[in-house]
């Protein structure tokens, strides 16, 4: 066909894919690294924790705790099929697929609606490019990115063969395929959502809700098959089992890598992805550029009464996000709380674990177990506070701050508002988490000392000075180094791995023990296992204050920047 007469709706999709992938490289690269680390961490951590297969077997019972199944998915292992590869991947696959799903939602919305919103696509569309070319190129890009991720994880797992023989090539390939097909299904779902939602933000929200719903749906199915006899036969089964299969996340783990290495779930998922993509293309034909199939909601004509100061503005901008984080804190608190109910009996029944966890100073063994996990609480509670401080940065770079500061509002007032918000949020999040933990413990436990609210508050609240130090670090960047604010997340991430994994592997290593203390979280003792001292709290709080004062001072001295 001559070029001038090529009127295909997909025209030039190939070329667009190239340019889209180039733009994607930095963003998807980060996801790729994170997913690979997550894939490897599980098996390697297991190998470090349990040096015999016997001790590994005892862990199967832990994985079968309902709260664990709800979080990590069904347990396909039994006493016979247990291996480091099988357990490590069984433990990590569902969470990894969850991340793959979220990544694909963000990727597709970014390449479609976000590009339209920024007006980039308008120019592209004026060129000889077909109407569906952008959606087509986005989905081709999704195939490339998901294939890349699945190949990298496959190779990474196959290389673990040198650590343990159970990491077979067939299993690694099966694991990688789960990433590939699940990713494609969610890319296609996101493509549908992108046609329906009225804005890119709305598309992201609806997409994440779909992911969350699929994650919850499979819990009901997974509960139905959790109890497995040593011979591998399912003991309990119920009519809800199908719910594991109607959720792509539930179906994605059914290939059972390193155990049965089945292909059929992946074939079903691939077919589903194709069907969803066809639906997305059909819907895309029916809508205008930068408009969804559902119309945009109207805003209010007047500002709410609280929107009368910078402080009120922060609440207006962060309200939904903060409520979301409060719900996350309740969920985390309730999940850990529900583990408290079963973990005691489990530890007592296993000689291996009762050696590992012993009651300390009259505190029940459940308390000791949960004290080790408190750093995760603190980390999650730290994120919303950092988001608030970084919000000031995005307000500055979007030139909003510029405008506000031309009204009678002091600079000091602006930055102080954000910091006060962050500090209040840290306390509120910690309080919500401890109350949620306590309430769940009231329901599921009856041991001595397990109903003491004050103890739960103390266990989590001791991390507050570490959170304040992180707020200080973020404030220092926002005030003094506004072009390098991403370092705040890098530091949080690196510090978390250093502290969390460091405590597992390095706490008895004289030469590398210091790594744990890279992050402020590493300075907080695991109460009540370790006694509390005053000085780490005083020093961390002081560091937090000094960094905040520096951030404020630097901000008051400099020009506002615009991104």
């Amino acid at each position: 066909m001559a070029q001038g007469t090529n009127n295909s709706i997909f025209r030039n999709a190939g070329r667009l894919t190239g340019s889209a992938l180039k733009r994607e490289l930095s963003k998807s690269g980060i996801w790729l690294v994170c997913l690979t680390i997550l894939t490897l961490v599980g098996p390697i951590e297991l190998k470090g924790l349990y040096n015999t297969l016997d001790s590994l077997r005892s862990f199967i019972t832990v994985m079968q705790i309902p709260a664990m199944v709800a979080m990590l998915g069904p347990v396909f292992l039994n006493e016979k099929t247990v291996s480091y590869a099988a357990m490590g991947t069984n433990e990590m696959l569902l969470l990894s697929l969850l991340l793959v799903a979220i990544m694909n939602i963000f990727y597709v919305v970014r390449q479609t609606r976000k590009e339209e919103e920024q007006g980039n696509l308008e120019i592209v569309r004026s060129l000889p490019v077909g109407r569906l070319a952008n959606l087509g190129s986005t989905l081709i890009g999704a195939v490339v990115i998901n294939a890349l991720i699945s190949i990298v994880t496959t190779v990474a797992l196959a290389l673990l063969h040198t650590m343990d023989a159970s990491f077979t090539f067939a299993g690694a390939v099966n694991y990688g395929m789960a990433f590939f097909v699940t990713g494609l299904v969610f890319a296609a779902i996101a493509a549908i959502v992108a046609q329906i939602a009225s804005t890119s933000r709305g598309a992201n929200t609806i997409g994440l809700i779909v992911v969350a719903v699929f994650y919850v749906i499979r819990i009901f199915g997974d509960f139905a098959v959790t109890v497995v006899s040593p011979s591998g036969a399912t003991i309990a089964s119920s009519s809800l089992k199908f719910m594991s299969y109607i959720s792509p996340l539930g179906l994605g783990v059914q290939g059972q890598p390193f155990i049965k290495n089945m292909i059929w779930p992946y074939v079903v998922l691939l077919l589903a992805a194709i069907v969803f993509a066809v639906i997305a293309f059909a819907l895309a034909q029916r809508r205008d550029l930068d408009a969804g199939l559902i119309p945009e909601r109207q805003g209010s004509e007047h500002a709410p009464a609280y929107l009368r100061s910078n402080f009120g503005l922060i609440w207006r901008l962060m309200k939904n996000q903060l409520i979301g984080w409060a719900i996350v804190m309740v969920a985390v608190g309730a999940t850990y709380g529900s583990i408290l109910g079963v973990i005691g009996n489990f530890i007592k029944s296993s000689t291996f674990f009762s050696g590992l966890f012993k009651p300390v100073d009259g505190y029940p063994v459940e308390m000791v177990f949960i004290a080790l996990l408190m750093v995760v609480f603190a980390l999650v509670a730290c994120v919303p506070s950092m988001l608030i401080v970084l919000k000031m940065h995005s307000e500055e770079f979007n030139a909003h701050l510029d405008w506000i500061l031309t009204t009678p509002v002091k600079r000091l007032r602006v930055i102080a508002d954000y910091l006060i918000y962050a500090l209040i949020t840290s306390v509120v999040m910690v309080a919500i988490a401890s109350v949620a933990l306590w309430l769940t413990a009231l329901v599921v436990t009856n041991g001595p000392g397990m109903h003491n609210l004050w103890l739960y508050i103390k266990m989590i609240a001791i991390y507050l000075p570490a959170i304040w130090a992180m707020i200080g670090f973020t404030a220092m960047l926002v005030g003094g180094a506004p072009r390098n604010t991403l370092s705040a997340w890098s530091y949080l991430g690196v510090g978390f791995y250093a502290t969390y994994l460091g405590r597992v592997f390095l706490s008895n290593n004289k030469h590398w023990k210091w790594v744990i203390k890279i992050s402020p979280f590493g300075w907080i003792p695991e109460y009540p296992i370790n006694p509390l001292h005053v000085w780490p709290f005083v020093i961390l709080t002081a560091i937090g204050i000094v960094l905040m004062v520096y951030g404020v001072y630097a901000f008051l001295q400099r020009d506002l920047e615009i991104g």
Partner: protein
Amino acid sequence: MTVIETHDLVKAFGKLKALDGLDLNVEAGQVFGFIGPNGAGKTTTIRTLLGVYKATSGTATVFGQDAWKDAVSIHEQVAYVPGDVNLWPTMSGGEVIDFFLRLRDGSGAAYAAAQARREELLKNFELDPTKKCRSYSKGNRQKVALVAALASDTDLYIFDEPTSGLDPLMEKVFQNYVAEIKAAGKTIFLSSHILSEVERLCDTVGIIRKGKLVEHGTLEELRQRWEVKGEALPSLEEVFMKQYGDEIHSDEGDEENELHKSIFAQYMPKKKAGDR
């Protein structure tokens, strides 16, 4: 009374001097037109006057107060419309307007008066305040900023290219409001490169070039200064072009002039055009 005054004002970003010894003087009740091409330093001047940028050297005062140190008390009497209006995508236009009116006027009688003007302005500018800011066009975003600024009763109004996204009808509405403010004896600082608009609205004009004020005076003074004997008085556009035309013919051999000369040379007949 002098409202805006800068003396030998320098603002440097690294090596680049965006303002290079700017001397500016705006008297109370003037409608001051601030013109110059892109990159001449118009927005930098406004940002320095508003205390968003800190001057590298020299002085900048508004109402006799220091633009950086006394920013907050100055801002009680300033309404500003930025050149690039960035709004919060999830808030409605009405919310943004209310927010700015409250920041400036609090919640008493001044706020009630501003609310009354808000309704009138919304009607005249034909702006729907219930739409989310992300779905406004450039012109509508500018209208939100204009309503927020014009509804407040202040002594000084600073507009940075306020009509670049407005249609001719809305431009007319804006011009009517400027005339109204002027009649009330308020001061207006209008940065623009739409010369016809400046000619129509402003009584005093300043031309900025490479961070220096190169022309300053009433419209009449400027036109007479560039008058050629035996020809009609030049328009503002002709004054502006002559001011920049001299740059092309000047003997200073810096890079930018060389570029201008080469552009100019394209339109000159080549001497040996027929040679091979």
